[in-house]
């Protein structure tokens, strides 16, 4: 029975079984891949997970919670349109998981240009901070004192500093255009914020107070991950197109070393240890004197995670992943590295036209007999962008009436659904080949025909007039994704901001997606790809201009931006609490 189970498992995972059929496979002894022996026969991880993984859902607009190391999915919490970076409240001291205080997780929504505040203890969405327009938030980073969120305005060349309590947001320009502030991290001393800019191919250093650009450091081509190590002495920059890691010295604000790492590097995480050398436990250990030994960098094109020694500043190991690692995460106890893979070609059973992305957990304990081996791999809905790990002890068990003794609800606490799910008519049609462009249909509707390919849209700019009814046709014309050649490449198309939910479309190969809505808010809104399609996924952009004839052509300075911020149900600038869903939805 046991061996039969193993055979079936191997067949499900092995391309050769699929090719030659089960009968053939049964004829000869099956070599069981090593990783499957990692869990002893008949045993599995306990149901109580010592750690949790909070993951942004990307295009599903949610926050997912998984257990570590069970890799079971606990729940999904709705936030909005296209969620990206989860960040625990508390302090950013430590590694990318920070020093959570167990109260909130902030999650930015790239599609709606907002930041969701989710109560960790209740598990409900409690507040949405609407960011100003034009902006186009990509990622957020918590300050050391925990009072501020810094964010990048990828679609406007701007940077923002948001006071979490009031929601007041200070926005500054980072020119010259084209400028795309992308991934960011704040140092652990409250001094500077480091931001990659893939159009500039630099890392911008911003002082936190006053909030301004103090230096731009040239790095490799099209940087992405910009990650500060726990000691705050180095910033690790993943140069997507240069296949290098640029290491910045935070004292000198200069490049210390350029390390060839792997093809298509995207992000780095580090381990973190307390003063005594043990795994750091927020709330128990002091947050001072934290150290780290290794950084792990995700390599999209190389299908690997590269391990970098932070004392030697050299690559010491590389672990194969399945496949196309985008973000990377580390468990709160440093034992496991989670490779957040963007492709699952051939790995899982089909459940529809959209393939699942996957999370892969590999053993990072050097003394373990399964070091470097994949212990768990699971299909994941949506297209997660980043995940952070929390010790499970930081979420209390409120399920047996503990709240009666206080500590959970001490004020009016909103339990929200996303209020800005404005509707559009949407459907698939067989792949159509109308040339790209905008034309007026017989029924007066503005028909936009867009083609998506690795890595861009045709046309790149679309103009309609305020009040136009729009019928947006989008077709993925890739044969296999650009330089990574994935035959199952899926594209996405979302117009950020007020058109986020109305335009949020999946573009699997072979069909044309159509959305119909009214362009009722003027301005310049970026169109972006919501399915990670390759190393230049972020550069895959276009723009949707809605011109108000009374105001003239829209640009970042001309548009109904005050109105845009009032996503249906969002009432005013800054901190906003929505008590009820919008009427009519």
């Amino acid at each position, binding site marked *: 029975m046991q061996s039969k189970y193993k055979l079936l498992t191997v067949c499900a995972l092995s391309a050769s079984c699929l090719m030659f059929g089960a009968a053939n496979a049964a004829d000869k002894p099956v070599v069981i891949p090593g990783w499957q022996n990692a869990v002893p026969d008949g045993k599995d991880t306990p149901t109580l997970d010592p750690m949790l993984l909070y993951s942004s859902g990307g295009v599903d607009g949610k926050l997912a919670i998984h257990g570590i190391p069970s890799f079971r999915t606990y729940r999904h919490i709705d936030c909005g349109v296209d969620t990206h970076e989860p960040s625990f409240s508390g302090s950013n001291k430590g590694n990318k998981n920070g020093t959570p205080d167990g109260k909130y997780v902030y999650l930015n929504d790239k599609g709606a240009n907002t930041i969701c505040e989710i109560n960790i203890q209740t598990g409900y969405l409690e507040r949405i901070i609407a960011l100003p327009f034009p902006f186009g938030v990509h990622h957020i980073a918590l300050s050391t004192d925990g009072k501020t969120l810094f964010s990048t305005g990828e679609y406007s060349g701007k940077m923002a500093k948001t006071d979490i309590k009031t929601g007041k947001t200070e926005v500054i320009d980072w020119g010259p255009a084209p400028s795309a502030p992308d991934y960011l991290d704040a140092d652990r001393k409250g001094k500077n914020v480091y931001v990659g800019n893939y159009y*500039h191919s630099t890392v911008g250093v911003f002082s936190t107070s006053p909030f301004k650009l103090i230096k731009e450091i040239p790095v490799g081509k099209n940087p992405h991950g910009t990650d500060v190590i726990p000691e705050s002495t180095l910033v690790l920059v993943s140069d997507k*197109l240069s296949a290098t890691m640029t290491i910045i010295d935070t004292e000198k604000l200069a490049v210390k070393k350029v390390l060839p790492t792997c093809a298509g590097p995207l992000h780095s995480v580090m381990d973190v240890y307390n003063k005594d050398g043990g795994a750091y436990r927020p709330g128990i250990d002091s947050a001072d004197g934290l150290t780290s030994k290794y950084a792990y960098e995700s390599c999209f094109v190389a299908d690997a995670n590269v391990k970098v020694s932070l004392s030697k500043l050299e690559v010491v190991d590389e672990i194969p992943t399945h496949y196309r690692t985008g973000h990377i995460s580390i468990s709160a106890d440093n034992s496991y590295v989670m490779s957040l893979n963007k492709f699952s070609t051939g790995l899982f059973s089909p459940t529809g036209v959209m393939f699942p992305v996957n999370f892969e957990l590999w053993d990072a304990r050097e003394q373990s007999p399964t070091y470097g081996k994949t212990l768990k791999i699971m299909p994941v809905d949506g297209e997660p962008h980043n995940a952070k790990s929390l010790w499970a002890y930081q979420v209390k068990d409120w399920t047996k009436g503990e709240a009666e003794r206080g500590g959970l609800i001490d004020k009016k606490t909103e339990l929200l659904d996303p209020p800005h799910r404005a509707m559009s008519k949407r459907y698939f049609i067989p792949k159509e080949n109308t040339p790209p462009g905008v034309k007026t249909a017989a029924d007066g509707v503005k028909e936009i025909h867009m083609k998506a390919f690795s890595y861009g849209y045709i046309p790149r700019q679309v103009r309609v007039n305020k009040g136009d009814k729009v019928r947006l046709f989008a077709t993925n014309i890739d044969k296999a994704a650009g330089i990574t050649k994935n035959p199952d490449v899926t594209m996405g198309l979302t117009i950020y901001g007020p058109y986020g939910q109305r335009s949020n479309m999946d573009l699997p190969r072979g069909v044309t997606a159509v959305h119909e809505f009214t362009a009722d808010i003027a301005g310049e809104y970026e169109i972006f790809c919501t399915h990670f399609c390759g190393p230049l996924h972020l550069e895959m952009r276009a723009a949707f201009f809605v011109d108000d004839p009374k105001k003239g052509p829209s*640009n970042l300075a001309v548009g109904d931006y005050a109105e845009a911020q009032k996503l249906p149900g969002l009432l005013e600038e800054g901190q906003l609490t929505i008590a009820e869903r919008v009427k009519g939805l």
Partner: protein
Amino acid sequence: MKNAKLKIGLIAIASLGMMCGSAFAAAEKRCTAGGVKVECPVITEAQAEAASKAFLKEGEDMEQGKGGSTYGIAPFDYLTGVGKRTAASEAGAKAGTYKGDSGYGGAGQAKTRTELWDRVKAPKSDGVTDKSVYDQWTNNWSPTFGTTLVAGADPTQGKQYYYVYCIACHGWLLHGDGPSASELNPRPRTLTRGDYMQKKTNLELFQVIKGGGEVLALSSSMPNWGNVLQDQDIWNIVAFIRAMQDVPPPKSVAEYLNPKSTFKPIKGDVDALNASNNKDFKEANEMIESEMTGRAPGTELVGSGFVKGGNRAAPNEVVVKVAK
């Protein structure tokens, strides 16, 4: 196996063997060069279809783990069992431990470590050293240029952007046979055709790359790249295109890495070095900028700035010399 490894870089080259000058059949009256109507340098529908299929086949081969696949071969794939194992890791596997599978870390393993770029190692007979293998892997099997045909622009830097942004339509060797070429009408231009490209000025190339085909009343399928690329990046790409004029499909890796261009700089043409003083360039660039996204007149976000980064040098700092 060596052949399979070579294939990953040269697949596009192989599919081009059939394509030579006379095969460019499809004529379009709308093509002009030097103000004169000429035959459009594009591939035929059948060639575009073949190029698409070859690319898709490569993707499917990868899915099935065939030779040349970039899926799961470095250095050992637990899920498929494909890939290299070192002697140390074989011994470890027998003993029930999987330490050292990557070839890093253990004593005496330095010689057996598997670099990711080993996967595309070329035969030594073609004069390819380990370092250039790394470059080829990360930069997609590409030449390095010692000289430039456009003053103030570096074709080696331009090449890297060409390979990630332009190949989808214009193809690995600039023949207009990218995997998406068959989806476009008109099909993308073959950028190596000397009789055509010699009549196209640098200014025209710059305008079409930065502002898209519609700037010069050409195909709406050519999107604008002015936001994705800075002006200097575009100049570098122009230099790369110039460096590939009349370069035929290569017969060996060595030939591929050393292309010989026939392009002769056009008298009085604008280049990266003199662009800032050229009236025509400034007018054209301002017009394109006025249509670009991400701008906010009256603020810092006015556009067309130069930002050092991405190995980007200012035109007067480009060290690669102009070819004589």
